[in-house]
């Protein structure tokens, strides 16, 4: 294709945004459009309740945990991998932090426990994949099964209620009138965006996912980096576990069910390539919000969840098809 790409340097003024950036902008604008349309639908069907402060707050609090998991998932997918174990890690971390023993040490230990369990599971994934050379699909599938099993064993399949009031008071509370959970979601996204787009770690993540061999021959420690990326995904699961426990004031082995599917769906409709090397956290955020708004519209209108799931499936396919046609037309010459 080299033939068609040598543009006359004079024809492209240097200040113009490079073509690939414009493509990304276009894609994100399209996604944002979908979100806006959904909000209009929500408002049209429920003008009295949809755009109220209470409903928006509810939606964002529901989006918080899955949003945080999706941040980690975006890193993993951009680096060329996949993580099927996120839901189970959320369950395990949630159960572990709410055992009677952990709760007896107080809220700080509970939080640390969730974060460490998440990080630990993620690192095990990462080490298996990078140094053990197990393909990501299989390694994280194994983690999915065993973390879930361990969570069931620890909890005896019972729901563990949080009795530690310090924990619930803080995480269920507000800061400046905005729920702590929403602050956490915003913070994780902001930190994730900066790490992905402004640090050497983010650079390496794109490089490893775009062409692992080229990254290796450029002197990047691909294995270490891969292990760290899964560690980050695990840490995000730990944070999400905190959020789920705070929202439901309990830990159970059924927490985080199907998070892996929701997170992958959000990442993919956000425009991140499943094959790695290209992606955007802002797209992921919009993806999460789209799913949350759809769910909310269905709940507000008392529609069944089965129809909701069908709608989700349609949205995933439609979003991917739409993005492909817009980028194809734009990027024809490359």
């Amino acid at each position, binding site marked *: *294709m*080299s*033939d*068609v*790409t*040598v*543009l006359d*340097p004079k*024809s*492209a003024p*240097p200040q113009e945004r*490079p*073509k*690939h*950036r414009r493509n990304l902008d276009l894609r994100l604008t399209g996604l944002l459009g979908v979100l806006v349309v959904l909000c209009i639908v929500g408002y049209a069907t429920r003008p009295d309740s949809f755009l109220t402060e209470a409903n928006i707050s509810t939606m964002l609090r529901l989006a918080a945990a899955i949003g945080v998991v999706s941040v980690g998932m975006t890193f993993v997918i951009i680096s060329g991998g996949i993580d099927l174990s996120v839901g189970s890690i959320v369950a395990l971390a949630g159960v572990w932090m709410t055992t009677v023993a952990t709760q007896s040490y107080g809220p700080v230990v509970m939080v640390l426990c969730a974060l460490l369990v998440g990080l630990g599971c993620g690192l095990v994934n990462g080490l298996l994949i990078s140094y053990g050379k197990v393909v990501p699909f299989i390694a994280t599938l194994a983690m999915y099964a065993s973390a879930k099993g361990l969570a069931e064993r620890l909890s005896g399949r019972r729901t563990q209620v949080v009795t530690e009031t310090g924990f619930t008071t803080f995480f269920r509370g507000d800061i400046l009138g905005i729920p702590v959970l929403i602050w956490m979601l915003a913070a994780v996204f902001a930190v994730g965006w900066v790490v992905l787009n*402004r*640090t*050497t*770690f983010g*650079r*390496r993540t*794109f*490089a490893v996912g*775009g*062409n692992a*061999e*080229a*990254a*290796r*021959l*450029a*002197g*990047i*420690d691909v294995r270490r980096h891969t292990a760290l990326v899964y560690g980050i995904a695990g840490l995000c699961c730990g944070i999400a576990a905190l959020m789920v426990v705070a929202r439901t004031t309990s830990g159970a082995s059924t927490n985080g069910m199907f998070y892996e599917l929701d997170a992958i769906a959000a990442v993919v409709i956000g425009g991140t390539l499943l094959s790695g*090397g*290209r992606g955007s956290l802002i797209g992921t955020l919009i993806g999460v919000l789209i799913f949350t708004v759809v769910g909310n519209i269905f709940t507000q209108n008392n529609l069944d969840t089965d129809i909701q799931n069908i709608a989700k499936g349609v949205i995933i396919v439609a979003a991917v098809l739409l993005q492909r046609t817009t980028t194809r037309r*734009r990027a*024809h*010459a*490359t």
Partner: protein
Amino acid sequence: MTLLTMTGIGKTFPGVRALDQVDLEVAEGEVHCLLGQNGAGKSTLIKVLSGAHQPDDGEITWRGDKATLPSPVAALRLGIATMYQELDLVPDISVAENVFLGHEPTRFGFTRRKAARNHTRTLMARLGHPEISPDREVGRLSAAGQQLVSMARALAHDARLIVMDEPTAALAADEVDNLFRIVGELTKDGVAVLYISHRLEEIRRIGTRVTVLKDGRTVAANLPAHTPTDLLVDLMSGRKVDTVFPHRETSTVDTTREVLTVTGLTRKGEFSDIGFHVHAGEVLGIAGLVGAGRSEILETVFGARKPDAGHVAVDGKPVKPGSVVAAVKAGIGLAPEERKAQGLLLDLSVAHNVTLSSLPAYSRAGFMDRARELKDSKATLERLDLRPADPRRLVAEFSGGNQQKAVVARWLVRGCKVLLLDEPTRGVDVGARAELYRVIHELAAAGVAVVLVSSEVAEVLGLADRVLVLRDGEVVADRRADELTESAVLDIVMAGSAITEGAATEEVQ
């Protein structure tokens, strides 16, 4: 008799007029060579011919009738088969399955695998390689073997015109001979070949007529194959290009500083007991056939492969074997053989590619200093004359020569002491080659120790101070470049093990 006529072919992509006024005429039984620099429109023209792209204007006549090529299948049905530079075979299935992919012989809807196998066996025999079994997995064949499969596929379609896009780029000398023999036999049967290559001497050997493209236009059509080189280069570039290697006034070798030392490097089955040293400012050339272990040695020195024995040292300090990270830290850089697969991140901008090996230097506490990154990338692109010098463009948008410069730029920015170049000019057009040669000399002048591997002996001799000749994974000669001639190197390379070091030396003298 004229087989194919294309007149006034034009094709526009958003922002680019890829083909403007292309005329091409191919007669039956001829080898028609298509010349042009990277970006001249050759690839687009091939894609039009193979049905992958639709021309915006112009006319195609096939065997006297007006024709359209709406799809690759339609082109194949007419009898136009294309062998792409990056072979389009399915690596995991057998030779026979690849040959008949998409047109498997069937009966009642079931594939007739035996018929396909037998037919494939006949085709491989016709191509001079009956030893390649139809049941072999294609991915396990060498590059030359895969090319034969691709050719067998063309023959299976009863192609009247076979388009070959740089077929010799991945071949060793004896394999090239076989390819040319096959081309000769095909043309005797009346099959026409449209041959694309950057190597002018090949065109002399097998070409019948030559058409030259420049900036999407035919600038000269149906020249005889023995047209003088100067004229062809002038036509391609539209300017005089000094194709000879830039002469170095004075040697830049600093014999007091031995930068790279390799001793007893061995990888079982690939090469054994390789030892050499490179001084600051020296260019060491490595010549030898494909498969003689050249790339393997470079990759082992770079730590991308782990040696079974031997050491690598930079400035006298040993480098941890089998670790790219350690090699890069010690100051070694590699421009790998497969530019796209091993060297570049095509989806990322040039700036991101250029700083990839120097991320710590372009960051503070892990945060990228993007302004400095852009500034330095731009300065390096300008130094290498990489055009357009816009570091924010995607690497995928550049031509082969400019992509190669981007890989070199990465190590320039890092400031490496040793630069290993594996086939740096493969698939690079004449103009960009001359610039790469200049860059190599500049690097040497700046005190970098350069190791250059190339299949083109003339290039090794023209650029290097000293030449290492390899055969079957062993060093068979280590001499100053000015003591060697192209034919002497070829003699050493081709000679069986009977020829001793001494005999080779006599030949040289």
